[in-house]
């Protein structure tokens, strides 16, 4: 039994103009202590997966089918039970993630008292300890969010996510809003803190570089579907799905020759309102056949492609 199992999860948004399928039969698992990357373009369903796990999908969105299990127990019906305590989340923008009118200390202590038996002084001591772990001076518990730099704020957000000692942290583009120079520091910190506690991480990003450095396994998403999953090494060295191949080929590397032009996948990901029949990638796929235009490929042997799922 894996720590977290997602099985055939579908999320739909019902609006005046029809039903949009934001997640389409997504299945994946997460092991204890593992760093799982989720990669894909905006709107591919990465964040939606994260929100679905925590039950943070607001109406008109709705989980229409499938199951999410934490340690074998379904959490779809009552996500409040695990939200914050067993699974925490980190959002993209650290400034707007923190309540501007409350001190860092107040926000940390509030979370600690809520999810752990520590109260009063004990909670304050734990808050100070967390601050030290993330490399911020414990004196700054009395500071307000706006008095920190972006990188420092995201460290505080990590501390807040760790405050309840959760089994899983979902980090949704945690470094996108930060300066490149700070990104690595924050991700290293996340890795370090989580490894120390054995916490699993789902790292949502669109940056293949981040995936390569900080994850053990990667799921690739496209138009609401999981199209390939595997160890980071395999995905980067030998991607199988034509989209993943394109994604890897279009990622710049430091040692590449400046004269070679980067590969571009032709076209754009379709909006959820206009997903083509069959494989969602078929209009852009260099190897698509008739079958690809008619039948939706399922994830077989960790890849959802009619032509590539044989090992």
């Amino acid at each position, binding site marked *: 039994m894996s720590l977290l199992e997602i099985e055939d999860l579908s999320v739909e948004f019902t609006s005046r103009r029809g039903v949009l399928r934001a997640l389409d039969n997504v299945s994946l698992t997460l092991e204890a202590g593992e760093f799982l990357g989720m990669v894909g373009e905006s709107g591919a369903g990465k964040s939606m997966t994260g929100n679905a796990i925590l039950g943070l999908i607001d109406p008109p969105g709705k989980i229409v089918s499938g199951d999410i299990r934490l340690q074998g127990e379904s959490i779809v019906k009552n996500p409040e039970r695990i939200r914050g305590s067993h699974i925490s989340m980190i959002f993209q923008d650290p400034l707007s993630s923190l309540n*501007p009118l409350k001190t860092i200390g107040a926000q940390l202590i509030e979370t600690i008292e809520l999810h752990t038996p520590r109260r009063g002084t004990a909670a304050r001591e734990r808050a100070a300890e967390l601050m030290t772990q993330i490399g911020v001076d414990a004196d700054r518990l009395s500071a*307000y969010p706006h008095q920190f730099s972006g990188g420092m704020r995201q460290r505080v957000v990590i501390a807040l996510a760790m405050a309840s000692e959760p089994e899983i942290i979902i980090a949704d583009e945690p470094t996108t809003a930060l300066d490149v120079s700070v990104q690595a520091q924050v991700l290293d910190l996340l890795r370090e803190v989580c490894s120390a506690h054995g916490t699993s991480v789902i790292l949502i990003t669109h940056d293949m570089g981040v995936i390569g450095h900080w994850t053990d396994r990667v799921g690739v998403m496209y138009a609401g579907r999981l199209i390939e999953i595997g160890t980071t090494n395999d995905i980067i060295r030998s991607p199988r799905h034509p989209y993943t191949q394109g994604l890897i080929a279009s990622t710049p590397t430091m040692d590449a020759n400046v004269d070679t032009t980067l590969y571009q996948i032709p076209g754009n990901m379709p909006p959820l309102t206009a997903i083509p029949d069959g494989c969602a990638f078929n209009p852009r796929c260099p190897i698509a056949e008739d079958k690809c235009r008619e039948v939706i490929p399922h994830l077989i042997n960790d890849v959802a492609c009619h032509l590539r799922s044989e090992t």
Partner: protein
Amino acid sequence: MLSMIIRRIGQSILVLLIVALVAFSMFRFVGDPVSVMLGQEATETDREMLRERLGLNNSLLVQYGRFVGRALEGDFGVSYRTGESVAAMIADRAPATIELALFSGILATIFGITFGVITAINRKGFFSQFIMTTSLIGVSLPTFLIGVLLIWLFSVELGWLPSFGRSGVTQLGSWWHTSILTLEGIKSLILPAITLGLYQMTLIMRLVRAEMLEVLGQDYIRFARARGLPLRSIYFDHALKNTLVPVITIIGLQFGSIIAFSIITESVFQWPGLGLMFINAIYHVDIPVMSAYLVMVSIIFVAINLIVDILYLFIDPRIRDAANAGASE
């Protein structure tokens, strides 16, 4: 922080001087004070003597300076209509208006915030829908119609409450009189207070609701939810506090308009306060009373704005830091 407060006080004084200039211009240029005070039959010598006595022959700047100086001493001249000292008229009528304004302001704030939070949290609920629909009518309904409606219902039909006047007044010391110490007095206060407070309540409620909805969509609320904080704490601790800056602004500004709407309410209920005095002054073109009222009301407004600004500093650490940073530059 202190220097910012001082700067704000300086700006307030400038505003007051400009308002005083408007009041002075009204006093000086609208109608001819000499013919109003002496009547048409006065001789030219009498006129000239009065001009000299009133200082109308001095330069305008000197006259303006004297106007401001006298206003600071609380001297606004005498009413054209009654010949009474304007300052005495104001002192006599102020307690009635202040009592009415405070009473309805407090009612409006308490109910406005409560209803605003309820309707924001439970948007689709029956109670929220009911309140929102009623409030829309409340906003559209002119204050005087609300007054007439209440009179019709509670005075004409039910006969529970008096339809006009301020009764049961007790004199407290030499300069204050109140109507809240007798049952009769409280009864006469109820209808005017509701009339005056209803519109403000609706405004506060709609603003609190809008701000709550805005704040509830913020990332830090999502993050608070993701951390598993209970809804009660998210709504009343995290969200409500973040709505307070605009809400306090509007409550402050609304207090100003309570003064303005008291003109209407007092007129409907013949409540013997400053508003009734002002509307009579307009009708009879009693310029000294009008300009004194203008100056007095602007002092109240400016003072409220100043208090609101200082309150921000206590609520929002960002504004506090900005003020401190501004001071150290």
